[in-house]
C-alpha cells in the first residue's frame, strides 16, 4: 500500500500526487519509474518518478487521465492508497557535465524531462528547455521547468502560450542558430520523439529519448515492453526506458502501443458506466 499524502490539480485531467514511499524515494534517480496498481481489479501501469524527497520518504507522480486505469488513479484523493507500488524501475540516466543540453518536452513528457533537467542543471550543465502542450491551460510544471532552465521556450497548438506549432519547429531553428548544443533530451508522445530525432540527426547531435511501450511487470519477466534499438531486441523496462533516439525503431513502438485500442475503448466505456452508477 502506498498512501497519497498530497494531490494537486495541474491542469484539466492532470494531477500531481505526492506518495509515501520511503524505500522507493531512497533509491530513486532521474529516469526511474514505478509500476502502480490502484486496486485489486486494476491494471499495472508505469509512471515516471517526477521528483523525490529522501528525507521525507516521498515521491511525486504526475498522472494524466487518458483511459480507464489513469482515470481510476486520478479519482483517488489525499489519504487514499494505491494498492501496489513497485520501484524504482529502469535504468537511471547518466547525470554528468556535458555542456549545453536542450530538453524537449511534449505534453506529459514534462514529467520525465523535469527530473533529468533538474539534475543535469545541478551537475553544471546549461539547460535550454522547449516545452509544448495543446494549450496554455494544458501546459504543466511551467514554474518548475523555468526554475531549472537557463533559457526556456514554449509551443502550443493554438498559440495561447509561446509559439504556435510544434516543439520540433523551435528545436530546428534553435539548432540552426547555435553550435553550442552538446546533447538533446526529448520526451513525449512517440511521434514527437521521432520527429525530434529526425531534426537532431540532421545536426548530428546525440539525442536521448524515453520510451513508453506497454508494460506489465516492469522487471524483465514478460517481454511485452520489447523495443528494437539498433536492430537489437531490448526490454524497455530493464534496459531503458531511456535510449539513444537515433537507434530506436519508432514505427514499431507506435504500432505496439496500439495493441489494445479496442479493449481500451471497451474498458473506458465500462469505467465511465461504473462511475455513473456510483
Amino acid at each position: 500500500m502506498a498512501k497519497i499524502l498530497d494531490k494537486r490539480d495541474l491542469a484539466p485531467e492532470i494531477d500531481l500526487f505526492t506518495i509515501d514511499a520511503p524505500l522507493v524515494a531512497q533509491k530513486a534517480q532521474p529516469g526511474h519509474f514505478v509500476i502502480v496498481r490502484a486496486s485489486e481489479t486494476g491494471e499495472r501501469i508505469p509512471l515516471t518518478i517526477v521528483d523525490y524527497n529522501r528525507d521525507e520518504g516521498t515521491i511525486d507522480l504526475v498522472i494524466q487521465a487518458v483511459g480507464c486505469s489513469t482515470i481510476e488513479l486520478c479519482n483517488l484523493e489525499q489519504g487514499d492508497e494505491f494498492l501496489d507500488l513497485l520501484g524504482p524501475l529502469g535504468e537511471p540516466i547518466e547525470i554528468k557535465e556535458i555542456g549545453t543540453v536542450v530538453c524537449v518536452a511534449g505534453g506529459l513528457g514534462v514529467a520525465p524531462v523535469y527530473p533529468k533537467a533538474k539534475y543535469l542543471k545541478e551537475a553544471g550543465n546549461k539547460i535550454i528547455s522547449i516545452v509544448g502542450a495543446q494549450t496554455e491551460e494544458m501546459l504543466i510544471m511551467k514554474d518548475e521547468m523555468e526554475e531549472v532552465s537557463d533559457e526556456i521556450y514554449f509551443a502550443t497548438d493554438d498559440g495561447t502560450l509561446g509559439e504556435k506549432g510544434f516543439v520540433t519547429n523551435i528545436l530546428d531553428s534553435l539548432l540552426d542558430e547555435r553550435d553550442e548544443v552538446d546533447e538533446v533530451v526529448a520526451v513525449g508522445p512517440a511521434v514527437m520523439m521521432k520527429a525530434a530525432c529526425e531534426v537532431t540527426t540532421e545536426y548530428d547531435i546525440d539525442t536521448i529519448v524515453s520510451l513508453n511501450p506497454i508494460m506489465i511487470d516492469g522487471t524483465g519477466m514478460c517481454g511485452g515492453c520489447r523495443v528494437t534499438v539498433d536492430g537489437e531486441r531490448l526490454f524497455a523496462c530493464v534496459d531503458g526506458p531511456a535510449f539513444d533516439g537515433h537507434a530506436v525503431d519508432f514505427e514499431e513502438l507506435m504500432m505496439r502501443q496500439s495493441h489494445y485500442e479496442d479493449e481500451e475503448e471497451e474498458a473506458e466505456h465500462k469505467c465511465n458506466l461504473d462511475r455513473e452508477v456510483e
Partner: protein
Amino acid sequence: MAKRQTMTKQSSEKRINNFNEVANGFTKEEAMLEAKRCLQCKNKPCVDGCPVEVPIPEFIDQVLEEDFSKASDTIKAKNALPAICGRVCPQEEQCEAECILGKKGEPVAIGALERFVADEESNEKAKVKVSNKNSGAKVAIVGSGPSGLTAAADLAKLGYQVTLFEALSEPGGVLRYGIPEFRLPKSIVTEEIEHIKELGVEVQANVLIGSTLSIEDLWEKGYKAIFVGTGAGLPYFLSLPGENLNGVYSSNEFLTRANLMKAYKFPEYKTPITVGDKVAVVGAGNVAMDSARTALRLGAEEVSIVYRRSRNEMPAREEEIENAEEERIDLKLLRNPTRIIGNDEGWVEELECVKMELGEPDSSGRPRPIPIENSEFTIPVDVVIIAIGQGPNPLLPKKTPELETTKWDNIIVDDDTYQTSISGVFAGGDVIGGSATVIAAMGDGRQAAKSIHKYLQE
C-alpha cells in the same frame, strides 16, 4: 492386484469453457481403495524417488486408519506445500516411478493420495491460528516461488525471523503467475502460503531486490543470511522476423495477463488480453500446454502446438499432453516456425513453418530435428505464443557484480552448501539451473535452509 484408482475429470466439452480445475480429487472411498493397494514395503523404494523424501508408506497407512490430520502432519514434516505437489509434481517420473507395484502393473497413485490428504485437512480447517514469535537471527528470502517458500518455512520452524521479499504484488512465483487456475487453483496457493505465514514468516510484496533494496541494504537492515530463489523468469524468443508484431506473446506475458492479472475476467479486471480465433503455440513443454489450454478457455476456436520434434520427445508431462489432446488441441509435430507474417496494421496473420524430420541423437540425447528443404507452408493465425523456455532474470546479478553467474546467467552455488560467491548468500531453485520442477525447487530450498542454519550457528 486391485486396479489403480483414477481421479474423475471434468468432461473436455465442459472444461474448455471454464477455468475450474480439470481433475476432481479422490472421494474418500476412492482414497481408501487406493491406499489399500500399497504394500507398505520395508525398504520404501518410492521414498527414494521423492526429492523431499515424503514418508509415503507412513502417510498412506494413516489414510487407511482414516486419520487424515495425522497423515497431513506426516507429509508436512517433509513437504511444506502438499496440496500443490499432489497436483503438479511429475509423479510418474519421481515417487510413482519407483513404486514396486509399477514394476509389474500400475504404481500406487501417490500424488492423488497426497492431494486428497492435503484437501481433507484444509476442509477440516478447525485450525488454531498460532502466530509464532520467532526470536532467532533475521534471514531474508528473495523470491516467493516454491524454493523461497520452502526455505522460509524451514527456517521459521527453526526459530529464525524470516522475511520473504517478492517483486510481484502477490507471493507464489510461477505457482501464482504461470501455472493456470484449471491445473492449480490460486485459492490453494493462497492457503498454502497462509500456513507458511502462520509459522511467523513475514511477506513483503512489491519489493524488487537489486532495485528497491540491494543485497548491501539487506545486510545493513540486520539480515544475517540471504536466500535467493528468483526463478527463471526471463522469456526466450525465437529471433525470427515478425516476432514483435502485435498478437505475438511470450508465454510469460500471456500467462501473467491471464493468471496474475485475471485478464479472463476482462473488463471487470482491467488488464486486456488478445486471443482471437486461431492461436499457435510454439514449444511443447508444460508451459506450452498451459498456454494452449488457457487460450482455448479464453475463447480461441482453434489452438495448435507447433513442435519441431515428434510426440515422443515432447517435454510436457504425459498427463498434460493427454489433457490437451482431449481438449482437441492440434499437435503440429515435426514443424518448425521460420517467419511470422503480419498485415499492414502490424498484426500477425500467418505463421510460416518448415517440415522437419528426425536425424541422429544430438547432445541432449534426443533425435536431432532436420528441416526438409522447400517444405515451407503457412498457418493462418490471430495470436502466436512463444513458449520455448525461460532463463534466469539477470537483474539481481547485474546489480550485484560480486554474485557470480554462469554465462547463461545461472547463479553459481556450491554443490553441497548452496552458498553463492558471496558469503552468507545462498541460492536455489530455477535460478541455479537444474530440473525446473516445483519439487526440485523445494528440495533446493530445504537443503539451503539446512546450510543456512549451519552457517548461522558457526
